[in-house]
């Protein structure tokens, strides 16, 4: 049994015994399938959700150590999803997107930056490699343990 309450999982040091559970909210099923296949080989369980509402529902009904959220989805977008999850939980959130869509007039502002403002723990730009994925999950768990310090 993994940690049932995301608040409880904050203080738990990850050991080889506990399976890290990852909720992947992405409308592109091939992304969550790939994350699931890669993480399964590392004894982590990734649960896919194709829409924000379905993802939030799954988040409520089951315990997760990390939530990965894609920013551009039909229906509720990733930014609002992050806001909603953050309003009720301190679970580490990884915002992922292939878009930066920087405005040349305001290059510091992009969608991944906005995700951080909404409460994402870290961001991951698509397409990412397995080491980047694993590092992002590790880092987000580590950051969540150290009382949400951002770099």
């Amino acid at each position, binding site marked *: 049994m993994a940690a049932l309450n995301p608040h409880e999982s904050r203080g738990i040091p990850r050991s080889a015994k506990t399976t890290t559970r990852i909720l992947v909210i*992405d409308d*592109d099923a*091939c*992304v969550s*399938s*790939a*994350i699931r*296949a*890669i993480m*399964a*080989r590392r004894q982590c369980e990734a649960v896919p959700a194709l829409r924000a509402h379905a993802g939030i529902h799954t988040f409520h009904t089951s315990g997760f150590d990390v939530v990965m959220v894609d920013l*551009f989805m039909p229906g509720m977008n990733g930014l609002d999803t992050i806001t909603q999850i953050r309003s009720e939980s301190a679970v580490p959130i990884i915002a992922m*997107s*292939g*878009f930066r*869509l920087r405005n040349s*007039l305001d290059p510091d502002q992009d969608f991944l930056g906005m995700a951080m403002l909404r409460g994402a723990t870290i961001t991951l730009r*698509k*397409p*990412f*490699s*397995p*080491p980047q*994925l694993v590092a992002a999950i590790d880092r987000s768990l580590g950051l969540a343990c150290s009382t949400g310090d951002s770099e």
Partner: protein
Amino acid sequence: MTQKADRTKHPSFSKGIKVSGEQAEEPEIGRPYPERIRTPNEVGSAIVHQLNGPLTALRLYMGEIRQHSGRLGTTETDDSLQQIVENAFQETERVCTMIRLIADTLEAPLHQEGAVELGRDVINWWTRSSGTEGGGNANGPGVADAASPQSIHALLTPRQREVLSHISQGCSNKQGALRMQIGPRTFESHRARVMQKFRARNAADLVRLAFGEHAATP
């Protein structure tokens, strides 16, 4: 309407909405039309969005395969790695199908000569906007910027170039024909050919073309 005031703040909306007397209807020569910036942005965004999913999946699969490539084909091969190889193959097929669909969706210009030029323009736009990395010489030395007069002239025959030059100097068909010592009908046919090549609608388009700007935006 406050919406109008807000929209005009954004530079890409400046064309088409008259803000003040200073705002010219025509953009300056050498500056691309806002529509020409927006359209590639939209097309590019759509393509990025389409390809990001399968490419993310592919990168994950291929990274994993590479890391454990030593075990492939040996008795050590585990089922989950085999499955990842199979998934990677499926994603590759999916990316190829997507690229084919995207390529088929793009509307071609009416004329084949223009098609090559427009294609180059798109590639040049991309290398320009992708910044310093690989930009500039990525197309090789022979490929000129489509907006530059050299590349437009490269598509024209010497006669057509001459006709374009006379038109850009303000000559009528008759005057141009006289200067070139050819019949007005011949001058007109050269002119028609140039207009057809670049989808120019009128003499003003041709003049812009001669000065290195694109003529028609459909």
